């Protein structure tokens, strides 16, 4: 689909006033599109209010501050470590795969692309099994933060790669041809012309990947080895102290104060994600505006 086609809207707006049933249907559709947003907001509000009722806010803040490195703050720091490590691994791999796939006429490209698309559909727990077998057991990294980061890197690599492919494809061919006309080699064109032009698109994909890695809990459940006693801590960091698992573990505890703490963790998690997604959206908008003139 060309850019002009994308920009042209196909929607015709509301039906004319005399088509009463059409209008009624349109209103029904509007309500249906608002319903999930309203329900989601209500449920989240109910969760937060329940957390506020469970515990005195001041007592909660004092407890969170007192628990220090073991509690919420420690798990936020752990999450930041984990996510930056995994992005550090996933970004070169994903962008490299995308550059390779978008290169001139590769054999078996469609198969590689199909493979990438199917990987994006693999449920995230299965990545946990892969991480457990490959990194924890085969590479003897133990139930460590590094193993968890490598697992998450595998999980978000397809996200980065898909976004990077789209961004690379959006770079106009004229730019590449100009580079070749000036006598640049293919590697020089890729590095100095195509990648800088595609950078905003790649970057917004990376932010999406960060958001995904930040909230993901299922593969960590396996890699962190919650069943194994956590006393055998390794020098490579402890993956149990990350935000999603912190929330999960608090939830598993019976008493109410732990649940209030879990909800405090949810607030931090959602706040971080809000910032990340707004950032990604703004980046994409700016990129599109610059591209379309």
């Amino acid at each position, binding site marked *: *689909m060309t850019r002009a086609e994308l920009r042209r*809207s*196909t*929607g*015709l*707006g509301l*039906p004319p006033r005399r*088509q009463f049933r059409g209008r009624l249907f349109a209103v029904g*559709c*509007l309500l*249906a*599109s608002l*319903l*999930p*947003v309203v329900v*989601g907001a209500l*449920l989240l509000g*109910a*969760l937060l209010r*329940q957390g506020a009722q469970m515990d005195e806010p001041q007592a909660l803040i004092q407890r969170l501050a007192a628990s220090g490195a073991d509690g919420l703050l420690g798990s936020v720091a752990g999450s930041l470590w984990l996510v930056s490590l995994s992005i550090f691994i996933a970004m*070169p791999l994903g962008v490299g*795969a995308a*550059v*390779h796939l978008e*290169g001139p006429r590769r054999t078996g490209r469609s198969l*590689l692309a199909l*493979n990438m*698309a*199917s*990987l994006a*559909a*693999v*449920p*995230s*727990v*299965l990545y*946990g*099994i892969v991480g457990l*077998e490959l990194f924890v057991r085969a590479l003897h990294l133990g139930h460590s933060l590094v193993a968890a980061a490598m697992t998450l890197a595998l999980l978000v*690599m*397809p996200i980065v*790669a898909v976004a990077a492919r789209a961004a690379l494809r959006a770079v106009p061919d004229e730019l590449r041809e100009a580079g070749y006309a000036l006598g640049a080699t293919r590697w020089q064109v890729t590095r100095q012309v195509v990648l800088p032009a595609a950078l905003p698109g790649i970057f917004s994909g990376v932010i999406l990947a960060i*958001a995904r890695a930040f*909230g*993901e*809990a*299922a593969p960590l*459940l*396996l890699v962190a080895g*919650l*069943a194994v006693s956590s006393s055998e801590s390794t020098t490579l960091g402890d993956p149990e102290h990350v935000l*999603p698992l912190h*929330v999960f573990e608090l*939830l598993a505890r019976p008493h109410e104060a732990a649940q209030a703490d*879990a*909800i405090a963790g*949810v607030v931090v*998690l*959602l706040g971080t994600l809000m910032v990340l997604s707004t950032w990604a*959206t703004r980046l994409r908008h700016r990129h599109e505006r610059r591209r379309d003139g």
Partner: protein
Amino acid sequence: MIALRVSAAAPVLLSVALVGLLVRGAWSEGVLVLPAHGLLPLVLGTLLVAGLAAVIAVPVGLLAAIYLGEFSSPSRRRWLKPLLELLAGVPTIVYGLIAVMVVGPWLHRVFPSVQVHSGVTAALVLSLMVLPTVSSLTDDALRAVPRELREAALALGASRLRMLRVVVLPAAAPGIVAAVMLAVSRAMGETMIMTLAAGDLPSGGLDPRQAVKTLTSHVGHGALVEPLDAAMYTAGGALLVVSLLTHAVAHRLVRRRGRWS
């Protein structure tokens, strides 16, 4: 250049490793190890919960997509669509918390026969999570229908509703089915909501008002109790097959053209 080759090969290696590990782990001394009550209850439980979620999410998602694609003004669409997609970005652990602490107790209070940890609870929350998948992809499919087709229908005197039913929806049908399949695939692979909310009934009952055990919750609960046993690899393999099958169907359909083309 070699680095590029390596990074392009990484996904292939990853998928080989995934399949290989699952197949190797599932066999113990030459015998395929099944979960305690067989594989079938888990698969049926997965289908039940994901199907229920789809039954709730698909009608609402379709209507929302029709609004976004057909009736909405561009300015309203610009804020409504990201708002809907925000629902898909909420971490699943948060959904799990909502299911256990808000939806479950509330359902139990209104319908005493429904337990707090039940298939219905999980399906309700799951439907909220997969709804943006349905609405966004269906919206894309509707927008891919050429404007000329709509204009032709209107020129022949069709009302807007009739145009939608007779021309636009059939033309977008493959894309819509693909959207539904992708949503089901996402729902089946979701772990945290299933583990927290669907409960853990070992007998494998299929009453949605009670706890239902699914493939993902089997693996999720297993991770908490003991180091992985072979039965969990079998469940993981089944999960991989089921979700890749639905994804493959969706992948085939997305490209296909509907009627009038």
